[in-house]
């Protein structure tokens, strides 16, 4: 009886969005009288930080600091339609809609600034700090604060924009299955290292090294929180979780966190996250949707590591001590 060590690898890809259902999302952007910007959506922030990302996308597009943008979400009286926050689509779909709306608003803003500065709008640029400058003559400038005041009270212009992003529905062809299930894919490769106690069947994940390719890390800190959380969830799926431990038998289902097994802090592996960026052609600033895929590769990587450690295949999830022990017993019997 011994503690045995093994490692396994898995590589995956993951589609962004739900093309097979049609995938629209809209956004509205407008400026306040003092040149702050409001993004209005009906999209839902599930705690992953969608509001923050939409603010950064809007700020980048208009050319102002992120703290000048406020995001209003999840109200059907004010926010235009969004299909919903699922299918790794929030950042990609709503982000594209926000870019379109922000571009339209930026154009009006530059037109008003052009009138104030008596130049052509096409000769203007933003400095990212809240000012609009004449290209090549930065001493000639106006603050966005003053532009917004002028638009509201002098020029009678609405600095606002409408954004719509739609991936039209793809209908699979009946006989061949020809379809377009996604417009871009995120990628990952994970190497997991485990210890298996061949007396108790218990699996301990020691390290997980994840490489994720996600298009563009719009906010690296938030990318990290999502990818680390996903990686933990992958381990949890591999070793612990199910509402029906003896599926298809319906008995013994957990009804609270005492019975429904999930890893505690002490059960989590040393986790390494490496991010690659291959910008997607249709993503907001190249972003793809990594929200779902980041929890996938750990499951097979752990299963393969268990085999590497003790030479048994557990092809049924979760990989419980009971399943490992039964497989070891069957292996010994052969």
């Amino acid at each position, binding site marked *: 009886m011994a503690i045995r060590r093994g490692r396994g*690898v*898995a*590589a995956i*890809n993951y*589609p962004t969005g*739900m093309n097979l*259902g049609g995938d629209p999302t809209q956004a509205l952007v407008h400026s306040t009288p003092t040149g702050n910007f409001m993004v209005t959506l009906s999209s*839902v922030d*599930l705690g992953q930080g969608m509001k*923050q990302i939409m*603010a950064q996308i809007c700020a*980048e597009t208009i050319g102002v600091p*992120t703290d000048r943008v406020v995001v209003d979400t999840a*109200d*059907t009286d004010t926010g235009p339609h969004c299909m*919903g926050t*699922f299918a790794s689509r929030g950042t990609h779909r709503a982000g594209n809609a926000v870019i379109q709306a922000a571009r339209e608003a930026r154009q009006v803003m530059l037109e008003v600034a052009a009138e104030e500065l008596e130049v052509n709008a096409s000769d203007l640029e933003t400095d*990212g700090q809240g000012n609009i400058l004449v290209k090549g003559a930065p001493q000639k400038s106006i603050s966005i604060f003053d532009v917004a005041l002028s638009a509201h009270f002098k020029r009678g212009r609405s600095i606002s924009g409408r954004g719509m992003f739609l991936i039209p529905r793809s209908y*699979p062809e*009946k006989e*061949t*299955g020809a379809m377009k*299930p*996604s417009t*871009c894919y995120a990628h990952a490769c994970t*190497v997991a290292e485990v210890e298996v106690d061949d007396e108790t069947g218990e699996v301990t994940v020691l390290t997980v*090294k994840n490489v994720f*390719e996600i298009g*563009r890390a*719009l*906010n*690296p*800190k938030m990318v990290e929180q999502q990818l*680390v959380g996903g990686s933990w969830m992958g381990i949890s*799926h591999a070793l612990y*979780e199910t*509402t*029906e431990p003896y*599926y*298809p038998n319906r008995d013994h*289902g*957990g009804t609270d966190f005492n019975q*429904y097994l*999930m890893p505690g802090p002490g059960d989590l592996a040393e986790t390494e996250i490496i991010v*690659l*960026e*291959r910008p997607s052609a249709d993503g907001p*600033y190249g972003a793809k949707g990594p*929200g*779902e*895929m980041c*929890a*996938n590769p750990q499951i*097979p*990587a752990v299963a*393969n590591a268990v085999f590497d450690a003790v030479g048994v*295949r557990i*092809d*049924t*999830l979760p990989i419980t001590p009971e399943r490992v022990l039964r497989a070891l017993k069957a292996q010994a019997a052969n």
Partner: protein
Amino acid sequence: MELRKNYFADLRKDDLHEIGQPRPRSDSPGHVTGKTAFFADRNFPGMLHLKMVRSPHHHARIRSIDTSEAEKHPGVVKILTAKDVPHNVYTILILIQIGPEDETVLADGKVRWKGEAVVAVLAETERAAQEAAAKVKVDYEVLPAVFDMEEALKPDAPLVNEYHGQNYYLYDSGECRKVRFGDVEAGFAGADHILEQSYQSSPIEHAPTETTGCVVAPEGNDRFTCYTNTQAMFFTLDNTSIILQMPGSKLHFVGGTVGGGFGGKVDVIVEPIAILGAKLTGRPVCFIYSREEEMQISSPRAAEKVVIKDGVMKDGRIVARKVTGYTDAGAYSRHSPYGAQKGAGHYPGPYTIPNVWIDTYCVYTNRTPSSAMRGFGVTIGDFALEVQMDKLARLIGMDPLEFRFINAYRDGDMKAHRQPTEGAALIECMQEASRAANWPVAEKYLAMSSYVKGA
């Protein structure tokens, strides 16, 4: 976390101001100081609490329902049964024309899974609602149930759902979604080795911190405001409008920060019945799942069975792959027909294989309906595919990572569902994993590229 900018540097301009900056989240201070408002923080004078009477049987005919004792229970204000729901038989994906309507808001004549909602009790307190629910008498005639997908697909299996007429979802392509590419049998015939293996998962709970729920307030103007943690505002509003036969203009849905979704809050379950309760009583109503309901009543990730048959050459090329996927939908469709179909679009994984055959089935059984969950239609498939890849590599005596390089898809490769590959990055992820994990591979694999021609 480490950003490795040396990959794809020629495909990227790093000239942005706000994007790419690790700005602190504007909502973090609210979260960590307890100031962020969640839907359940709404409280209204006179608010009623809704509790469900649920089926104790997996499959049963309802002979009769007697609510008389429950109605007399102190604090009970209203009791709802199927006849109170204007459009009681519904399905959520009807919004994108994926029918038939196959589920009841409140059971009508039959229950098809243990835990199915039968009667809704509205009372002044949660406790009164719970106690009164226990006094509702339902007379059941228990019917044979089926839990195993293979059993369910046999011709003599008990019929789970009459609205389908058979225990699988009928696609326009027939009993399953199909992908056919190349000639899979010819591929097997020419292969050096064949490996057929079966993989299985069990249902998994989303386990959000905040359970599913809503608070509904009738407004003075004949409208209803529904504070909810749904993941999809208009999806829920439009379905509610159909179920209650109420114009969408009468409905106002307000969300906000959700305490974790993971796909568990895209079913439309709590809102319609809570709004109906508010309409019929004229009072605010809250309906919030207990942890037990969240774990055993709300949809889990579907259990799946995946059978993969591969033909592989000694030099490492996979020449044929046949995948048969089964998604256990439970008693009702919810999002499962979509998930099974998404699986068909995902197989055979990120590998270029000339001969592919895919069948994915959505199967009905007498269990808690499954639905969307993070990685829906893909997560379990990836488990099966990547364990299979490991087995294939060992079968032909090849390093598992090098084996994947040989088969990895690259830009321009035609996928089984007939889309050319774009934006591939699998090879680069594996190259970086080889370096980071100190898992050596031959130099020729480190020189490969997803997009540079000839590399």
